[in-house]
C-alpha cells in the first residue's frame, strides 16, 4: 500500500486501535515534549497529549496527508492545544486578579490538581512579568481587562493588526520563557 502515514490514516479510519498504539509509540514523545515546553506543567502537558490522540482517533479524517506528515500534524495540534490551555490559564489568572479572589472551581480539586494548577499559574504569572512592556500591556489588557483586539488597539492608540501581532509575539515569547523554565528545572 501507500506511505506509512497514509496506511496509518486508513487503519485509524477503519477502527484499528493497534494503528493508534503504533502512532502513539512513534510520535507521543514529540507531542508530549511540545506540550510540556509550551505549558511547563507536567499534568497539563499530559492532558494535551491525551486530547491530541483522542481527537486523532475520533476524527482521523482531519489529517490531510497532502499537507504534511502525521508527525508534523500531531505536533502542530499539540502546540495549538497547548496554546489554548495557556490562553485559558491567562484568562483564569486575569479573572482572579480582577476579582481579587479565587474563582470557585466547578468541583473540589484534588490535592494533586491543586498543586498542578498552582504550578501552572505560577509559571505563567512569572513568564508574563518577563515580557517586553509593549507585549505585556497587550496581554494585560486582553486577559486582565477582558478587552477585544479592537478595544486593546483603541486603548493603546495602535492599529488592530499591531495589537494582534504583539499578542502573537507575546504568546511565542511566553512559550519560550516557559520552555526555558522547564529546561532549568529539569
Amino acid at each position, binding site marked *: 500500500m501507500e506511505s506509512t502515514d497514509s496506511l496509518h490514516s486508513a487503519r485509524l*479510519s477503519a477502527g484499528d486501535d493497534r494503528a493508534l498504539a503504533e502512532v502513539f509509540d512513534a510520535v507521543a514523545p514529540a507531542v508530549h515534549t511540545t506540550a510540556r515546553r509550551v505549558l511547563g506543567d507536567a499534568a497539563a502537558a*499530559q492532558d494535551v497529549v491525551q486530547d491530541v490522540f483522542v481527537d486523532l482517533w475520533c476524527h482521523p479524517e482531519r489529517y490531510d496527508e497532502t499537507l504534511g506528515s502525521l508527525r508534523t500534524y500531531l505536533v502542530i495540534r499539540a502546540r495549538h492545544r497547548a496554546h489554548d490551555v495557556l490562553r485559558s490559564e491567562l484568562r483564569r489568572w486575569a479573572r482572579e486578579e480582577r476579582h481579587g479572589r479565587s474563582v470557585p472551581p466547578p468541583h473540589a480539586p484534588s490535592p494533586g490538581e491543586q498543586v498542578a494548577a498552582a504550578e501552572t499559574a505560577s509559571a505563567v504569572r512569572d513568564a508574563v512579568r518577563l515580557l517586553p512592556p509593549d507585549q505585556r500591556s497587550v496581554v494585560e489588557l486582553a486577559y486582565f481587562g477582558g478587552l477585544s483586539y479592537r478595544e486593546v488597539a483603541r486603548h493603546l492608540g495602535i492599529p488592530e493588526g499591531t495589537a494582534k501581532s504583539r499578542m502573537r509575539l507575546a504568546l511565542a515569547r511566553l512559550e519560550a520563557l516557559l520552555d526555558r523554565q522547564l529546561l532549568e528545572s529539569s
Partner: protein
Amino acid sequence: MTADTPLPLPAGLRERVLDASRRARPPGRALPETPDISPVEVFERAADAFAGALSALDDAHWRRPVLRDLDVQGLVGHLIGVEDDVRRALAGDPAVAAADHVASTQPTAVGQSGRAPASTRRDWRRSADRTLALLRDADPDGPVALHGLHLPLGALLVVRAFELWTHENDVRAAVGLPGSVPDPSALRRMSDLAVRLLPVGVARVGTGTSVPVDLHLVLTGPGGGTWDVTFGRPADQGSGGGEGVTIVADTVGFCRLAANRIRPDQLAPFVSGAVAHADRILAGAAALALD
C-alpha cells in the same frame, strides 16, 4: 537536556491515552459510520443496481461474451434460474439443496438465445421481485439450503448480493461500462460476511500449518472495519496464543477477491507479523468464490 531532546514519557500515559481513546470510540467500526441495513435491503439494492446496469445496454451489448460460454443475455438467464431456485429453497424444496449452481440454471441460461433482450430483462426483474416479495415476512435467521450452501437466510441474501454485484460488474466490463461499488452500508454487510466465511475458504485450501493462526484483518475505506479471526483452533477455545498475522487491505478489493474476480497479488495488501500465513489466508478468501 537540549531543546531537541524529547522528554521521557510519563509512566502510565500510554495506557491512559489508549484507554480514553477506546472509550471515546470503540475499535472495529469504520468511519464515517454507516447505517445498518437488513440483508433483504442489501439484496434489494444489489438487484436495483443490476437492473440499472441492464437498462443501460443496447441490443448489441446483450450478445457480448461475458462469462463461461454465456453472453450477457445468457448470464441474465442464469440469474433468472438462480431466482427460481432461491424461491424453491425458501419453500423447502430439497431438490435444490445440493444442486449444482451452474448446471441447475443452465437450461434457463441457454433458453434465452433468440429472445428479445427486453423480454429477458423483464423476466429477470419479475423473478427478482417475486423473490423479494417472499422475503418480506421470512425469518432472516431461518436455515436455507441452496446449491450446496447451508446458511441462515440473512447470510444467503448477502451471498446473493455478492453474486449480483459481481455479475453486474462482469456485464459492465464486457460492454465497456465503468465498474460499480456497493454503497457503504451494503459493503459493510458484504465484507463482514466474507470475513465470517473466511475459515471455510481457508479450510478449502488448507491452513498449511499445525499451529493456530490469529489473523488481525483491517479492511480500509467505506464499509470496512477490523476483525480478529483464528484458524486451526476449535471455535470454543477462543483466540490468542497462535502465530499472529496482520493483513490490511482495501474493502472493495477484498470483496472482489472473495468473489474470485482478482488474485491475491492484485489486492496488494499490507502484511505484518507471521507473513508466511498471509498467502494461504488470501487464497482462502478467493476460494470462497462468492460470485
